[in-house]
């Protein structure tokens, strides 16, 4: 009985009906998600519809929703992956040579295609397709090669799904702003980029030499704190524990005549309906000095604060300064980029940019390499991709002392670290080979039957 049930489950998981149902539901999710962007940011919609297991409501207005129960995008894509594996690979009728040749083809293309240019990819894909024709039609025509093309295509689609999964779990996306001139708030070179949506609490210890050593409370630890709930963090090297509470994803600082902290309080705002990166979080940070008689320091931190909260903490009879800051999450990359020149061309008579590009120098392990990044030509290196996404033009400003100064042009890059960055293109190459083989075989079969019909 169990075997029969398992068989039915496998039948269901590999069925066309499941594939059609999943694809239909994905269409429905896309439709509802698109409509909901009227009231919520793309980031929020994407999280709710496509990174979820279940969807429990549909938003029908700024403050109203309609209860519903639908599978979320994450669950549907997982089902689609299982459906492909079971129905398109395991249960499809195939001979062992076909399976081996399909696996070999997918592996070969999966290894070779990411290492070559897009132009060369077409050549390699064409050669591999030709090789398949030679092997199956000329070298070993007696073997059963049915469904070879189908298996290769399904291998490519599985790689596409895997690329999405890897990107979901292992990619970082953010921004890097570099100026032509170093000074003040401007950085000319950098080896870190900042998140759009995630914020970390950073506790910085001032070191003897003038530097700082940072310790981090990651966003995941406090973003889910409910009202009235707190989280405690400790480190043996720190003279205090850190307690976080009252987290708001988007809030403002208001004056509080009674209560509050330093006469101030955080007032919650609804998330920005257009761009999630505009949300400004804030929370209450409490530093609890260790040891008997240790003092308690309470301070609000907010995304828009002008500078970190500096706290003097007693340690061995002296007061040591610590900085507490809420700032966008930062990721390092294993080389340094320096902006040498930013070039913008404008539409005649306007301030609207027509095209813009950045000449940068990539510095790594003692060597440097000049690189041009344009709007359609990103820099890809070591799994990181730098897209030219925006800029701030140079402006002449007058300081309060009356000095006229010119701000440097600032080039802004979107940065993506995605281990599966090249997988989608590779998957397309694999699918292309599979489809070309299938159509070629159909054509050959048709030509053979035509020849036979004419001969008859």
């Amino acid at each position, binding site marked *: 009985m169990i075997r029969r049930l398992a068989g039915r489950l496998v039948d269901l998981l590999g069925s066309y009906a499941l594939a059609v149902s999943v694809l239909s539901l994905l269409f429905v999710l896309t439709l509802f998600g698109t409509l909901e962007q009227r009231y919520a940011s793309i980031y929020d919609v994407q999280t709710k519809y496509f990174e979820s297991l279940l969807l429990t409501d549909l938003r029908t207005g700024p403050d109203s929703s309609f209860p519903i129960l639908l599978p979320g995008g994450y669950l549907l894509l997982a089902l689609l992956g299982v459906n492909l594996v079971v129905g398109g690979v395991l249960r499809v009728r195939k001979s062992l040579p076909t399976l081996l040749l399909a696996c070999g083809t997918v592996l070969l293309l999966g290894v070779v295609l990411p290492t070559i240019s897009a132009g060369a990819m077409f050549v390699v894909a064409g050669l591999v397709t030709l090789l398949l024709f030679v092997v199956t039609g000329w070298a070993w025509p007696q073997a059963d090669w049915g469904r070879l093309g189908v298996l290769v295509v399904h291998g490519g689609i599985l790689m596409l799904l895997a690329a999405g999964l890897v990107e979901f779990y292992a990619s970082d996306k953010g921004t890097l702003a570099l100026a032509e001139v170093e000074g003040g708030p401007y950085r000319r070179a950098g080896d870190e980029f900042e998140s759009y949506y995630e914020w970390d609490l950073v506790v910085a210890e001032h070191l003897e030499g003038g530097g700082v050593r940072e310790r981090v409370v990651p966003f995941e630890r406090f973003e889910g704190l409910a009202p009235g*709930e707190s989280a405690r963090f*400790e480190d043996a090297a720190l003279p205090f524990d850190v307690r976080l509470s009252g987290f708001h994803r988007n809030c403002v600082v*208001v004056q509080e005549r009674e209560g509050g902290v330093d006469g101030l309080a955080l007032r919650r705002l609804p998330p920005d309906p257009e761009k999630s990166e505009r949300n400004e979080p804030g929370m209450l940070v409490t530093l609890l000095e260790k040891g008997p008689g240790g003092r308690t320091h309470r301070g609000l931190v907010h995304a828009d604060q*002008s500078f970190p909260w500096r706290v003097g903490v007693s340690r061995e009879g002296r007061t040591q300064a610590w900085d507490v800051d809420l700032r966008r999450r930062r990721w390092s990359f294993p080389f340094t980029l320096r902006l040498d020149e930013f070039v913008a061309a404008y539409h005649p008579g306007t301030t609207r940019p027509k095209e813009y590009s950045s000449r940068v120098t990539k510095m790594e392990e003692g060597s440097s390499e000049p690189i041009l990044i344009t709007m359609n030509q990103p820099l890809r290196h070591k799994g990181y991709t730098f897209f030219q996404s925006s800029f701030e033009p140079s402006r002449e400003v*007058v300081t309060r002392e009356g000095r006229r100064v010119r701000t440097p042009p600032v080039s802004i890059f979107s940065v993506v670290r995605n281990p599966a960055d090249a997988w989608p293109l590779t998957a397309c190459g694999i699918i292309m080979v599979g489809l070309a083989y299938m159509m070629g075989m159909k054509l050959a079969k048709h030509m053979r039957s035509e020849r036979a019909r004419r001969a008859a």
Partner: protein
Amino acid sequence: MTTTRPSLLFARLAPTAGGLLLCSLALAACGGDERGPYPLEPGRERPAPDREVPEAATALERLGVRDEQGRPVLVPTLPQGWQAQPASSMRVISARVPGSGAGDGDLAVSWAGGDVASNVSRWLGQFGLPPVDEQGIDALPRGQLAGGPAVLVEAKGRYDGGMGPAPAADGQMLLGMVSLLPGRDRLFVKLVGPDALVEAQRDAFITFCATLVRAGTATSAPRPVAAPTAGSAPVPGSTPAPGSAAPAATPPAGPRAGLDAGRLAWDLPSGWKAQKPRGMMRIMDFRVEGAAGTEGVLFQLAGDGGGVALNINRWRGQMGQPELAPEAIAALPRVRWLGRDAAWVEITGTYQGMSGERVEGALFVGVVCLLQADSLFFRLVGPKAEVEPQRDALRSLLASMREGG
């Protein structure tokens, strides 16, 4: 085959379920509403802090404040002669600009939604002028409004009265500044009145817009103030258009609750030199001839700046000394500064500055003066041999300090 009646099943399961529920409640009660403890994750070591922290900054200066709609609370510095009027639901700041017999000018600062072109077109429409599109906005002169870029709008002719108190009249002029910063709401400043009056107030208007600041940053350091430039201002190499007024280097005097640091004057002791301040909150830096390792800093904070005790103990921490008890702080010697008794503290030890500077065998002389709405601080730090002979000079400097110089 046995069967179980529903009532019997319930009777068997109820104690188990109840026990589980009670255990859960007990666990929840024991755990409280605090998660963790979790370890802090190691971060990066940096050669210097990301952002400079001003001396004894207050929470208000650090965080700023917003109004009930989540908009920054703005602090105006009204030019000489302008008279503040009550704010309203539409106007966060309102002022009257007194004129001659032709009438007064009316200034309104307000937040509104919508794009720049449609709002500017609405203003132009009040003067019977055609609307502008985005390209027309691109061609307008640039200015600075509350710390961000803005466009300057002008219109002359017959004014239909709009929604403000100014009546419909001929020979009127509008000066407007519209923030270009993105956001849910956009900041608008509009001055309407007789054209001769408004024209005469052009520089004052531009300066008013440039010096409008968020609450909590009113005493912060010099921030860039954009000069209005004509046409395609952002194009590198562009220069201000002839006739486009630049804001005055020094904001005009206006009613202020606190000390106006710009009007502070003093007599420099012999051998002392005043230098441009190097950091936020600083009013002036001082150097002493023949004492290269010594630096004096005069700075101002809003309110009590955290109080006398906190600041003195912070200074003691920088010198590697333990904190003083409240009684000891109360017993510190006093000097006269701006007509008040200011606490004078001397600390010896190794000075460790916030920016990493270190002075062995240092003497730190600090003075804290609490005023009505602000606080003034002076610190003189350097090698003991250099600072000791400057005690009298510092006393004379503080004694000579006055407002309105």
